Structure formats: structure tokens, C-alpha cells
């Protein structure tokens, strides 16, 4: 409980929201409390999944007010950040935990089926949930999905995460020892890579701010919790997805290459929209386009097409 009190105390004043939730709560699973919010009550329900816990549910701040005017929108803070608990140990942060948390939030809010929207690692969880529980998923919109194939990622090129490195330049900052020493510098570097588009200062500051709401120790645990998977395993999961899929991926994404999104679209039979010149978090940098794409995707699931 000390952890939570600490994190609450460290939350900086939040900037004024465009919309506040109509309901909120915690769902507890295995002693870990996960904080969720509900906005709006239209049809269908959209579950906006968390991403890596370097950020939390405020990542969707540009989507929620628009989508909630039309649909029922659920968000939750991924374990390790926001108002959710920060359990200790990598085992608490494996991918299955986040998928199970998503299901728990659906249950806690009385949601039978939802359209899943996942960014980056959230895209992986959306795919796994859609493959495992097709009866709960109307469709999956995947933004810059982080499916663990097509390695190596830029950060994996010669910079082992757990070893002490000589260099602290560039992706060498993606290193547990560096995080523990220079956490803020790492956050600033990572955000600058995520938002590769010019004139992204506000989006970068937001990401750094959300990153500071958790601790380097917690972030190390989330990173160690991310599970590797073979290409065959990933492809098998993608082929099991039966619902309509939309993939949006920037061709200037320095964190998760565009080829990953293209392959995800191909293997799921989904539509691919390429954001030309777009970096890693288009929902923050290109919110209008993403909002309209999400609405078009949701509308395509309804009406006569269904």
C-alpha cells in the first residue's frame, strides 16, 4: 500500500480535461488494483487499451472526448503507471497479465463485447484478446502494433538491456542501468524517438510527464515482463483473429517499424492505413485523422455491413 500512496503523492496536477468520466473504478485481480474509466454510453463499446507503462490512459486524451460523444468508451491504466498499482517483479507485467486485466475491466463494467483499440504493445494485447476470446471482440484497431517479430528493433541493435554499456548515446540509453541513473534523460530520448515529427514538443513533454509518474524500477520490471515469441507463434496468433482489423502505422516510426504493421494487416486480412511521415504515436500527433479513422472503422462494423 505504500507504493500506491507514494505514486498518488507524486501525481502532478493534471491539465484540464476536455471531458471527465461518467464512471470510474478499480478492478482487483490477484491483489493488483487496476483503475478504469468509462466515458459516454452509446453503442458499441470501445475499449482503448493501455500501451507500455511508460505512459498511461491519458495517452488517449485526444480520442476520448470525440469518441465518447458517440460510443461507450472504456480506458484503463496499465499496471505499473497511472492510478493502477505497481506490483514488484517482472512476472507481474507479462503480456498475459495485461490481457487478463482487459478482460477484467470488460467484466467489471458489464461489457459483453467491445471494439478494441490498441497502441504499440496494446496492439499485441488486442490481437491476443481477439484470438483467445472472439466472442468478446467486435473488431480491433491496431495503431503502430508492437508484435514481437521482424526483429531486431533499433534498440536491440547491439545494446543488451541488462548489461552495463560503455556508451550512453542513442539507443544505448535503452538500458536498465541507465534508467536507474538517468531516468529523465532516458524518457526524453525515448519520447523524441517516438515523436519523430517536427514541432512535437507538447507531445514529448506529455510522454515524459507520464513516464515520471512511475519509477525506473517499475519500468525495468515492465520491460523484463515483455515476453519474446517466435515468428511462428506470432503468426499463428494473428491467423486466429477473425474479427475485422484496421492497422494504422506511420512510415517514419522509429520505435516499431512500419513493416510490422504491414505484416499484421496482411496476416489478419485487415486494412492498412499508412501515415506518411508519421512517427510512433499518431493518436497524439495526428489526433483528428486517427479519430476519423476510428469512427469510420467502428461505423463499418455496424449498419448493413454487419
Amino acid at each position: 500500500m505504500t507504493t500506491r500512496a507514494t505514486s498518488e503523492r507524486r501525481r502532478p496536477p493534471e491539465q484540464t480535461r476536455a471531458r471527465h468520466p461518467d464512471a470510474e473504478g478499480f478492478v482487483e485481480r490477484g491483489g493488483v488494483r487496476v483503475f478504469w474509466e468509462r466515458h459516454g454510453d452509446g453503442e458499441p463499446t470501445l475499449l482503448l487499451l493501455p500501451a507500455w507503462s511508460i505512459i498511461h490512459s491519458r495517452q488517449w486524451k485526444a480520442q476520448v472526448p470525440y469518441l465518447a460523444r458517440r460510443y461507450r468508451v472504456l480506458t484503463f491504466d496499465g499496471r505499473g503507471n497511472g492510478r493502477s498499482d505497481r506490483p514488484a517483479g517482472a512476472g507481474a507485467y507479462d503480456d498475459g497479465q495485461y490481457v487478463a486485466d482487459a478482460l477484467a475491466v470488460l467484466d467489471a463494467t458489464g461489457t459483453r463485447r467491445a471494439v478494441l483499440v490498441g497502441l504499440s504493445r496494446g496492439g499485441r494485447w488486442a490481437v491476443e484478446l481477439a484470438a483467445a476470446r472472439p466472442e468478446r471482440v467486435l473488431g480491433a484497431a491496431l495503431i503502430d502494433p508492437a508484435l514481437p517479430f521482424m526483429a531486431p528493433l533499433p534498440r536491440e541493435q547491439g545494446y543488451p538491456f541488462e548489461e552495463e554499456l560503455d556508451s550512453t548515446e542513442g539507443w544505448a540509453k535503452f538500458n536498465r542501468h541507465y534508467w536507474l541513473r538517468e531516468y529523465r534523460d532516458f524518457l526524453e530520448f525515448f519520447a523524441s524517438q517516438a515523436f519523430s515529427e517536427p514541432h512535437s514538443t507538447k507531445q514529448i513533454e506529455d510522454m515524459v510527464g507520464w513516464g515520471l509518474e512511475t519509477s525506473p524500477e517499475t519500468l525495468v520490471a515492465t520491460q523484463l515482463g515483455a515476453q519474446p515469441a517466435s515468428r511462428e507463434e506470432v503468426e499463428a496468433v494473428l491467423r486466429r483473429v477473425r474479427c475485422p482489423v484496421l492497422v494504422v502505422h506511420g512510415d517514419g516510426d522509429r520505435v516499431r517499424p512500419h513493416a510490422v504493421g504491414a505484416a499484421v494487416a496482411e496476416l489478419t486480412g485487415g486494412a492498412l492505413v499508412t501515415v506518411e511521415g508519421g512517427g510512433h504515436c499518431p493518436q497524439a500527433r495526428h489526433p483528428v485523422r486517427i479519430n476519423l479513422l476510428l469512427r469510420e472503422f467502428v461505423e463499418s462494423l455496424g449498419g448493413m455491413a454487419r
Partner: protein
Amino acid sequence: MTLTITAGREQTRARYPDEHGHVERDGVRLFWERYGDGEPTILLLPTWEIVHSRFWKGQIPYLARHTRVVTFDPRGNGRSDRPQGFEAYRRREFAADALAVLDAAGVDRAVVVTWCDMGEALILAAEHPERVAGLVFIGPSLRLDEPDHGQYPFDADPGTGEGWAKETRGYWLRDWPGYVEFFFAQCLTEPHSTKQIEDCVGWAGDTDMETILDGFRGWETKIIDPVEVAALCPRVRCPVLVIHGTEDAQVGPSVGAALADELGGRLVLLEGAGHAPHARDPVKVNQMVASFAGIGPAPAPRTWTRALRRPRRALYLSSPIGLGHARRDLAIAQELRALVPGLEIDWLAQDPVTRVLEAEGERIHPASAWLANESTHIERESAEHDLHAFQAIRRMDEILVANFMVFHDVVREQPYDLWVGDEAWELDYFLHENPEQKRAAYAWLTDFVGWLPMPDGGDREAFLTADYNAEMIEHIARFPRLRDRAVFVGNPDDIVADRFGPGLPPIREWVEGHYDFAGYVTGFDPAGVGDREELRRRLGYRPDEQVCVVTVGGSGVGGHLLRRVIAAYPEAGRLVPGLRMVVVAGPRIDPASLPVHDGLEVHAYVHGLYQHLAASDLAVVQGGLTTCMELTAAGRPFLYFPLAHHFEQNFHVHHRLRRYNAGRRMDFATATPEVIAAAIAQEIGRPVDYRPVETDGAARAARLLAELL
């Protein structure tokens, strides 16, 4: 005025069916058509037999570009049979006909769209749910409260012939055309609906009063009973959309609203619209039907480029009738590129303009392939050196909607910074009718303003041209920011002295207040043509030859003039020693179809024709502005023959040429070959004293456009 209904010649369609046929049911043959392919099928039902399937002409080309569309003529009109007896025209028969047509066309299931439904669509959806994927009602007549008895009992004498008293047996027998005209005026109550009303009256003329009377004993017998409506509604399982005009003078919007409510469907009210919005507001209705059926432009482009990374892009629509505008638009585009480095220009264009563009290596947008051809239509509308230009444009309404919808899809899939429309009527008209469709800067270019009546068109034509002008003036007054630039290709003195019509402003005053003037745009630099002697040598014309170039522009309308001038060749050759006559048939007239004479040269399309005109000793041409002004700029003598009934050539161009003191006007009706030969002999090689034509028009026009980029 009593109107005689005569079944007119069908105007050029924007799209022709891919398949058609008759299907026979209980001895009644029904004519059906299929357009396009894809799922879902859209079945456009006929309404009652007062009109036929052409009534959907504003929808078919657009919908069929995205999916399969089936139409059929109702029993009693069009190319379907006219069975006898009241029972043959019961609504249940129409529903059964629809099923027979679906079977014949091999369609299991369709989205059904119906105008003024009197029961057939409801019966179809309620009793055959497996065949109906969705239902769109436009201005439905289906009441749930009490039957529509009409204002006067059909079989009684109302004692007057005014208003709805025309809807009685006695009046029909006395003045059927008067009733028909009244009826459709009540369907299309929006201002400026003359063309739509004329269309409907014409389709009513494709059947006869006896047939209509056979199936009509008052609306309370024509439309299914409210009790039956109420019984059928709960059986409808498919999605429903009801579209109803708030000013519908035939069936009030509350009828559509109640039906939508009863069916659990969606209601869309069109504020200010009458009973037939698919005819009067086709763009909006097309969008609604397409969105309901889940078809239309790709909802999400596959690539979206961040705004600041986009190159500047312009979409150029060059008036596709003939070749008149192609060269000037190219010249403007070239100047514009010089002013805006990196500018990318796409052309939405069609034959014959595309031939010029392709020869210059311009990028023609692939969607151009979807455009319905305007030159073909203009050629079909023409008679012997006679083209009623105003009516030809009016009768192009189906093509204009279809081509606007192509534009609509193009600009949804690809953002542009600027749209340029050089006399692109479809773009300018439908943008002002649907101003919410504007999503880029828009520049309009024209070389004339004002529809003018031909004297032999009488009061009716004077009324129609004034009505068209009035609608245009109202469009601009109401949406003054829609055209970001209006460019007049010419100078204020080029504008005719007429008014737009009774009670409307003088044309010149209004244009000076609403346009920028670019000066004339020849599309070439006379200085660039070089020394005339050198030019003649290069083109193979000898110094001792008297060269007469005969050309009729880029459309196929000029064949009769070419033949007449060719007939004058032997006599002209006697009068003019060393005469060399060069006939240019143009891109759309087959040179092999023209007579041959010894020494006469006949060519097809000639790229860079203006050089031959500049090198000639005389030209014989139609009254089109571009060619006449090329000759004026080059300072060559010429004979020009305005097309009969072509208001632009007879008034606007004639006025301008007089101002330049250029050319000798000829009258095709009285110009025998002998007259033409004599005129050739008098004019050939004559020194001229023309007002000079500016050479910076393209650069001035381009500067006006560049400011929008």
C-alpha cells in the same frame, strides 16, 4: 399555356446498361436494365406508371460505379407492356414484377430504393424479407392514419379547373397535358426546377392518358390502405431509411416520419426540399443511398500524408467540349508551375482534351476514365451546322451530375490545395448546390457570362435563360466565398451589353463586380511562332501559294461546314491562282468521311494547329472563340460561320470579334459554295487592321491562381 406532350428524343445518358432484357409475368412483359457489378445490388423501383426508369438518371451512373444497379420500367410506361384493366395496376402486381425482375437479373437480394412508394416496396420487404437487404423510401405515400382521398373526388365535377381540381377524370379528359404539368410542378416545388419538370412531363408523354386512367380511381384506391400498411410494417426486418422533403407538396413530411417511426428506421428530413429530391438534389441523395448501402469512395485512404509534408497539388478541370480550352489551360498551368515551384497538377479531363494533355506529357487523373463524355453529347444534340448550345447544356444534366460525383470521389481520396474549373459547369453548379462539399481553394474561369436566348426561342426560352442566370446570381450572392477566384478570360469591353433577364442586372456591371480580368489567353506566344516566312517554310507552304486553312475545332459538330467549304474549292481555285486549301477534320471527324478533290488536302487532328493558322493567308472556321481569337492574335484574315442557335457564338463571340475588328461573319444558311468561293477570293491575303491581343493573359491568370496556393 397548354403543353402538348410529345415523347421527346432521349437525351444522352451518362452511362448505358451493361445488360437489359424483358421478363414476362402473367403475359405482361417488363423491361429491365442492369448497370455495373458488385454487392449489394441496388434495385431502383419504378413508382406508379406516370414516369419510368429514366427517373433515376441522377442516381444510376454514380451508384453503378460502385455496385450493381437494377432498374425496370413499370407496367404502363417506358418499354414495358400496358396491360388493360384496373386490377392490372394494383400495387401487389408491381411488387410481383419487382421479384420477377430480380429473378431475371439473377439477383437474390437487393437494397430497394423507392420513390413515392404506394405499397409495392413495403409489400416486397414484408412478404419477401429474404430478397430485401435494406429499404430506402424517398417521399413515401404510405399513410398510417387515414387514406389519401385527394382534394376532390376523382369522379365528381369540382366545378373548377384550378389547382388540385385538375386531378379529376373530367379534367383529365379535357386537358391531360395540363394536369401532367400541374402534377409535376407540385412534385418539384423548388425554384429553378424547370428541367426536372420538363423531364417528368416528357416521361409521362411516353405513356398515354388512357393507360393511366385505366389504373386510377383516386389515390385512396391507388395507395394501399392504412390498415394494410400497419399490418405489413411489423413484418419488415431489414434496415430502413426514409428521406422526406419538408416542403413536399404531394405528401407531407409527417407521413414519412410516421412510417420511419413505425418501421424503426432512420428518418432524414431535407429542409426546403419537395417531393422528388433525388431529381432536384441528386448529390445529397446519392451520398445517402451510397452510405446506407455501404458503398461509395473508399472510407479510409490507404496512405495519409502529414499536412506539412504534402507537395502543393492542384486539380484542373478543363471544359471538355471541343478543344477550345485545352491550350489556354495548358498555358495557364505552365505559368502557374513557374510561380509555384514544386506544384503538382492533375487533370480531370476527357477526350478530346486528353489528347492535347497527353501530347504535352501532363498527368491525367486515372478517374478521368469514369467521366461521361460531353463532346459525344454535344455532337448528338447538333443538326446541320446547328447547335442549340443552351438546350444542349440543359440536356446534359445527367452527365453533369455523374461527372460531379466522379470529382466528389476523387477529392475524397486525394487532398488538393486548389481546384481549377475552366467552364467546368458540373463543378461550379453542384458546388453551389452542395456548398458543404468544398474542401479546397476553388478558382473558376470562363470567357463568357450569361445564358442568352435565341430570338426564335420565344418567351419560353427567354424565361428559361433568365431563370438559369437568376439561379447563378443567387448562388453567388448566397455563397460569395465559394469561388475563391472568378477569372474572366478577356476584358470588360468583351462583355455583351445585354441584361441577365427581366429584373436582373446588366451582365457587364455584374461581371465587373464579381470577376477578375486576365485579358485574353491565346495559349501561345505569337512572337514564339517566329518569322512568318520561316514558319511557312517549316510547315511546307511555298511563298507563291495562297494557303487557306479550313477547321471546325475539336468537336464533331462541324462536318457540314467542312463539306460546304470543300464544295466551294473548285470555284475558289478558279478565282484564286495558286490556292492551296488545307482541311483539318479535327480529332472527332473521320477525314475519310469527307469528299476528295484533286489538290485538296485533308488532315485529321493536327497538334499545334495555331501555327498553321498563323502561317495561312486565310482561314475558314466555325464561330468558336478560341480559333477566332488565335487568328485575331496572329493577324490573319478569316471567315467565320457561327453555328445556328449557338448563343455563345452568335452573341458573345460575335461581340468580341467586332471589338477586335476581326474576321468576316458568314451565315451558313445563305452561304452557297459560290458565295463562299467569292468570299475566299475577296479575303485571302487581305491586310488586316485588328486590335492587338495581349500576350500576357496566361501569366495574369496564373498570378490570380497562385495567390490561392
